[in-house]
């Protein structure tokens, strides 16, 4: 307990940064992932190919490598200088989008064909059909796996600690300089994550109860 109370500032700062990373990357990857998911079911073959290519590349690349690229390699290209925090958000977004895309796509597949057929009979365009009818139902159907993806994203934010972002994973290195027992420090950090994951799981259950589609 001493470790926690004596260094509460470091712990709080760390978890706040983690939650910021998580929030920004979650919003970013939900947007990009949904866009990619729509691309993957679009009538235009080239768009489908782009979506598939993106997913194939990023699902098979270690997140650490994506971080490695944005933190070490990207600055050498001299395009726009970005901070470590921005680099981490971008890396997490780019990586998680591929997984969100797959979830959204599987959700679109759960929507009965009659829905889309009815839309076409009413004369809706593909864009209208997707945004007004199919996606709202698809998103509700895939809510649990979507939240699971976000939980994985939360856990993945710790990798940013290895790339100069002072978030919860970096609490250990900060406190090791103060001579704290690292075993205890890491146990507290782990507990913090367990609590946040539990909260997200509760949220998942709650949303599932409210929004799940009865079929």
């Amino acid at each position, binding site marked *: 307990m001493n470790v926690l109370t004596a260094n509460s500032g470091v712990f709080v700062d760390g978890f706040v940064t983690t939650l910021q990373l998580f929030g920004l990357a979650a919003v970013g990857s939900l947007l990009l992932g949904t866009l990619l998911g729509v691309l993957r079911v679009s009538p*235009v073959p080239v768009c489908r190919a782009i979506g598939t290519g993106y997913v194939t590349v990023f699902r098979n690349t*270690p997140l*650490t490598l994506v971080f*490695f690229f944005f933190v070490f390699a990207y600055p050498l290209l*001299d395009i726009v200088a970005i901070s470590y925090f921005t680099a981490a958000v971008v890396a997490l977004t780019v990586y998680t989008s591929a997984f969100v895309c797959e979830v959204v796509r599987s959700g679109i597949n759960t929507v009965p064909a009659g829905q889309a057929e009815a839309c076409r009979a009413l004369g809706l365009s593909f864009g209208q059909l997707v945004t007004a009818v199919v996606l709202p139902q698809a998103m509700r159907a895939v809510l649990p796996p979507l939240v699971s993806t976000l939980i994985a994203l939360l856990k993945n934010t710790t990798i940013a600690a290895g790339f100069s972002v002072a978030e919860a*994973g970096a609490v250990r290195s900060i406190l090791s300089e103060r001579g704290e027992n*690292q075993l205890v420090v890491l146990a507290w950090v782990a507990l913090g*994550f367990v609590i946040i994951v539990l909260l997200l799981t509760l949220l998942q259950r709650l949303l599932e109860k409210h929004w799940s589609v009865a079929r």
Partner: protein
Amino acid sequence: MTNALFDAPGPKARVRHGVYSVVAVLAVAAVLAFVGYRLDVTGQLDGNVWNWLQYPRIRQDLLAALGATLRAFAAGAVLALLFGAVFAAGRLSDHAVVRGVATFVVELFRAIPLLILIFFFYYGLPAAHVEMSPFTAVVAGLTLYNGSVLAEVFRAGILALPRGQGEAAYALGMRKTQTTRFVLLPQALRSMLPTIISQLVVLLKDTALGFLITYNELLYYARYLGAQPVLHRPLIPVTIVVAAMYIALNLLLSLLATYLERRNRRSSKHIGPPAVGLITVPSELG
């Protein structure tokens, strides 16, 4: 599937799709061209930053680094499968105590970020006078995390089988062990295999975390090589090569998973719903 979302395009739609295609291709080409242009301007395409590829010694070291990655993968995969099997059996046990302990362990290690687990073994345990090499720490972390996920995969696979299978085996007078070994597992394994292999892809990707605790794997070597002034600091070329290696390895495993899944769907021996559809999605993220 998705073909219900749009009609077969008529003449007008074909023209419109043609326009969209051209725009999309141009957009992607523009991005790639811009990256290529930046690479060129910043001198990353010059011959001297790529020279390192010609040194036999460096190639050997690169292969050795790849070997280190694969070693961690192999050890982690075998141990995680064992861990998963043991704890899945624990979660399916008839004894409430065993079930409770197994559930607690599995849920705990699934909730802790893998990197924190690895840090725990590498930085934390020395405080308790247990020293671990980076290799052991990485393998231990991979085993606990992926083993827990695999335990859930195994359990879900067995529970997804029709109840009648187990009931019929019991009716024939088989014990629980016999039922599981001879009736449930052979069928469940068949439908779980794609999911298991997807999880192994995750495990392979996660070996890259070893980079953060100075395990001499592929990414660590890439960082080392990319900082060599003698070789003109070829960080970007090295990153490109290493990324290609990771993607190729994972793609091979992913293709195997897709192939098995397709074979499953065709097979007449396949019983029950195809594995644990929704569980694969989150777990694959690693």
